């Protein structure tokens, strides 16, 4: 399977159930799309993330009812620095989609999706612990992997691999 260039034109990708659904309900939330290596990514405006997730979960034709994964990527030193990544799976239709939200490095704050999927609890705590992204509305936003009194967020790119000595 040789690589073909990614598709970023919304019109060409309109047939994908997740994108179609988001465009007809909260069109303003969709900032961009990318279809690359058989995977669809949708870039979502920061303020709409919980709403977009709830809409996709409750879609009657193709419900993306399962949160596969939630993680983050640090693009230090460029801005917006953080990209929070949501991988959704539709168990009935076996479809996947990736949502992305970009956050500034100065105050990385985003709304929690624990009210949509309780399973987001651990994932969001992990991202908070290792990247320092804060999730508003999270029931128990405490460190998960590192000790409570740890300084810094280890998966940030400006954190040395060997740690501070």
């Amino acid at each position, binding site marked *: 399977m040789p*690589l073909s260039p990614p598709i970023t034109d919304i019109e060409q990708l309109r047939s994908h159930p997740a994108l179609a659904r988001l465009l007809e309900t909260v069109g303003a939330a969709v900032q961009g799309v990318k279809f690359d*290596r058989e995977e669809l990514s949708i870039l979502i405006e920061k303020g709409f993330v919980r709403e977009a997730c709830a809409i996709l979960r409750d879609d009657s034709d193709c419900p993306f009812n399962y949160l596969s*994964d939630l993680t983050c990527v640090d693009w230090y030193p460029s801005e917006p620095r953080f990209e929070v990544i949501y*991988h959704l799976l539709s168990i009935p239709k*076996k479809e996947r989609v990736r949502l992305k939200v970009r956050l500034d490095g100065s105050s990385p704050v985003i709304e929690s999706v624990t009210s949509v999927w309780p*399973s987001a609890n*651990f994932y969001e705590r992990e991202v908070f612990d290792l990247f320092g992204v804060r999730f508003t509305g999270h029931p128990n936003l405490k460190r998960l992997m*590192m000790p*409570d009194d740890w300084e810094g967020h280890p998966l940030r790119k400006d954190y040395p691999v060997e740690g501070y000595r």
Partner: protein
Amino acid sequence: MPSSPPTFAQPERAGTLTLNMGPQHPSTHGVLRLVLEIDGETIIRLRPEIGYLHTGIEKTCEAKFYQQVVPLTDRIDYLCPLTNNLTYCLAVEKLLGLEIPPKAQWMRVLMNELTRINSHLVWLGTHAMDLGAMTVFLYCFREREDILRFFEMVSGQRMMTSYFRIGGLALEPPLGFFEKVKKFADRFPGNVDEYEGLLTGNPIFLMRTKGVGQISAEDAIALGACGPTLRGSGIDIDLRRDAPYSGYENFEFKVPIRTEGDVFARYACRVQELRESIGIVQQALAGMPEGPVKADAPKVVLPDREKMKTQMEALIYHFKIITEGFSVPPGEVYQAVESPRGEMGYYVVSDGTAKPYRVHMRGPSYANLQTLGKMCEGHLIADVIAAVGSIDVVLGDIDR
């Protein structure tokens, strides 16, 4: 990881007791700490505390070449190292757009199913032992030993195999390997009968498992359960069938589903999976194609030792891969694989250099662990042991 003994800030009701189970409790299968709020023997609330085995593998990956990450993946879910290897290799191969020869794909399926049997045997043995059945443990580990010998035959290692490489396999399987696996596969269904004879009709085992640790399908999805935990609650999903990878579309197998959602349902699903897996092993042995086990991509795949010693280009490529790695076109990929415990996903981001920009592992145990509270609340302390065993957690996979 909490730095002080964890408690609940606010007890649910007055007169309850906070009890810490673990991190050194033998039934937690590793260093898992469960904080329980109990009223007598009844659990009011359960909260898992994790992080005791956190090694920062995701951070380490960012400092290694792509091919150097493969041995790290063994150490995440140490009961199914080959499944981890496979997920990572598939993700990077997808990033590279690399085609894998058929023999390598079939070998991957064969080894992957042996890994599933290996992992389920450890689960069955320890789960039964937690519930008081010692004999099953000895039988399971007897068969597991055979599988570990197969791993040793192909890779030289019993547990940390690193047998799958980006672009194919590390080596051809040795002479006599397929005959030995065939012998094992012919005998194994009889062994499963033996385990089932000890457990499936055993009244003590049934009392400890039926109606215990129940979870409904809606709760299982909302809390992110996967694999046998989800199938035990009646959700029909198996990534091998629904999103085939590595040539799984060529194999025939059934996906066992149970609807009760209790510990026994998850037990029944896994035991049936043992039988299905050995069926896949038989099919893979019968139809094993001939040909190379490495992709024809000299810039990515290490050359054979013989070629390296006799051909100049092979030596140069070998030197380049070892010293500089190989660059991967920019992009991102999420590859999900059905591991013995459920959906194992690797999210790999490339920025075009020879080192991965970000590797994130989505562990199935991590997802399943969140269902534990729902399973145990309102039940007895002894049932926690059964429930923890039934979701089959591996702490290396959770803490990474």
